[in-house]
């Protein structure tokens, strides 16, 4: 080899100085962050506990005994939320993707379908979820369709969640499909792949990657909105907590249910961050900012 300099050679004095400077600055900023966090926590704690009504609030919202007693019932309810979440998430993915795909069809035959999808998305993005829940939850049973029998509240709640969230997710998918560069379609079509093969084999796999972060965000929202099915009377974590609140005449079960939802959300939120970061890194490898 003409180059005798080994890459593992000792760094120069200049580089050593730079590293020492970076190191000291990093230590200083860690210290500052630590002190400011402690200071902030102390101030927050003191101002909360010094409030005139703090003792009563602590008693009725953060009561340990009530929390322990209520936890099993709230957990029972959370299992129902998880089931609803599971079926809603699948339903939303399938229905949302179908809506997005229908909207990309270009043939004039599909004009009514495209218009329908657009109207659907406008409608359900605008409607508050709680109203959809009431309309579906009380409207469908009100139709008295005998062959449907008595539909459990959680099923109606799942339907309402799917209707609403599909509208959001359809828009996310559509954005992802449009973000795939047209040259990719051109290449696929030039090879003789049909329109649907191009969609399935080239466009959608790339679109999925692009929309993974916003999709995860919608999933996090869905995770907490499954708690709203309680308004239909389904005994989920929120409704379970409500029953316990009435029983103990104490609000702590709500806090318990709230904490459980947060615990449920944290892994998904972290996963979403991880996926977003990984995609960002892939797209701008090497950049400092």
């Amino acid at each position, binding site marked *: 080899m003409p180059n005798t300099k080994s890459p593992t050679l000792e760094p120069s004095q200049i580089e050593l100085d730079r590293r020492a400077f970076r190191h000291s600055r990093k230590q200083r900023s860690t210290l500052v962050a630590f002190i400011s966090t402690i200071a902030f926590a102390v101030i927050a704690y003191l101002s909360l506990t010094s409030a005139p009504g703090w003792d009563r609030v602590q008693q009725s919202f953060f009561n340990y005994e009530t929390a322990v007693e209520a936890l099993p019932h709230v957990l029972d309810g959370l299992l129902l939320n998880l089931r609803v979440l599971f079926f809603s998430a699948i339903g939303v993915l399938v229905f949302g993707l179908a809506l997005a795909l229908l909207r990309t069809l270009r043939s004039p035959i599909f004009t009514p379908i495209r218009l329908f999808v657009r109207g659907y998305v406008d409608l359900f993005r605008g409607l508050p979820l709680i109203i959809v829940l009431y309309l579906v939850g009380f409207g469908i049973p009100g139709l008295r369709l005998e062959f449907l029998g008595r539909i459990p509240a959680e099923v109606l709640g799942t339907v309402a969640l799917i209707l609403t969230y599909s509208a959001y997710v359809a828009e996310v998918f559509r954005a992802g499909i449009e973000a795939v560069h047209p040259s990719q379609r*051109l290449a696929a079509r*030039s*090879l*003789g792949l049909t329109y649907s093969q191009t969609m399935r084999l080239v466009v959608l796999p790339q679109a999925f990657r692009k929309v993974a972060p916003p999709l995860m965000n919608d999933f996090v929202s869905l995770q907490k909105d499954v708690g709203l099915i309680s308004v239909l009377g389904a005994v989920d974590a929120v409704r379970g907590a409500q029953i316990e609140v009435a029983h103990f005449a104490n609000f702590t079960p709500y806090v318990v249910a709230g904490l459980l939802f947060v615990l449920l959300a944290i892994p998904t939120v972290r996963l979403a961050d991880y996926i977003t970061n990984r995609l960002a890194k892939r797209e701008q490898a090497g950049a400092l900012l």
Partner: protein
Amino acid sequence: MILNVKGLEKSFDDKAVLKGIDLEVYRGQIVALIGSSGSGKSTLLRTINLLEEISDGQIFLNDEDISDPRVDQDEIRRQVGLVFQAYNLFAHLSILENITLALRHVKGLNQADAKAKALALLDRIGLADKADSYPDKLSGGQQQRTAIMRAVALEPTLLLLDEVTSALDPELVGEVLELIKDLKAGGTSILMATHELSFARDVADWVVFLDGGVIIEEGPAKEFFSNPQQPRTIEFLQRLRRRAGDQ
């Protein structure tokens, strides 16, 4: 005769891009399309691949009128390969999968056969050891050679090359031109838009000079370059050569 274009016209809205093109490509020939940017070269190639609807005229592939809207367009595109200036490799697939995709889903080969065929093609361009790499990990020349092989894998009746070396660093142009020479030796019929005049002179059988959507002059490669007739051809060749001389 593989390709016969008769009186082809193409307008975008009110803007006429091709104004009556007559063109023939015979089996095993390389026909080079030259002309400045905007002369209609790319549009011509795209219409032949049926990626653009034509405004008038006819296109015959092996005596079949492929400009008839009743033909199966996907079937025609199977027979006509197109390679793009910007490679357009599928970003989510390895270079092996880039080649096997159409082999499996268009030609109907099973996975093992498709893979064997793709590996053989990658081996031909010295990229078999990179089969599992993704396009963004490859140099422009490697990507473009893969893109050419992706089209060649389907054994097209006619291969269209749209300025396949224009996006490449100068030192990578040679490897792609070598591959095109190889393909010609193997009997592939090629219609290529190009700015590589010396390549066109040495390898092409026929050269067509396109300007403003019309064919200004055409002829056998050697003759075309050694003895151009039309003033616009002479001016174009001088301009390109001056620029090449500058480099």
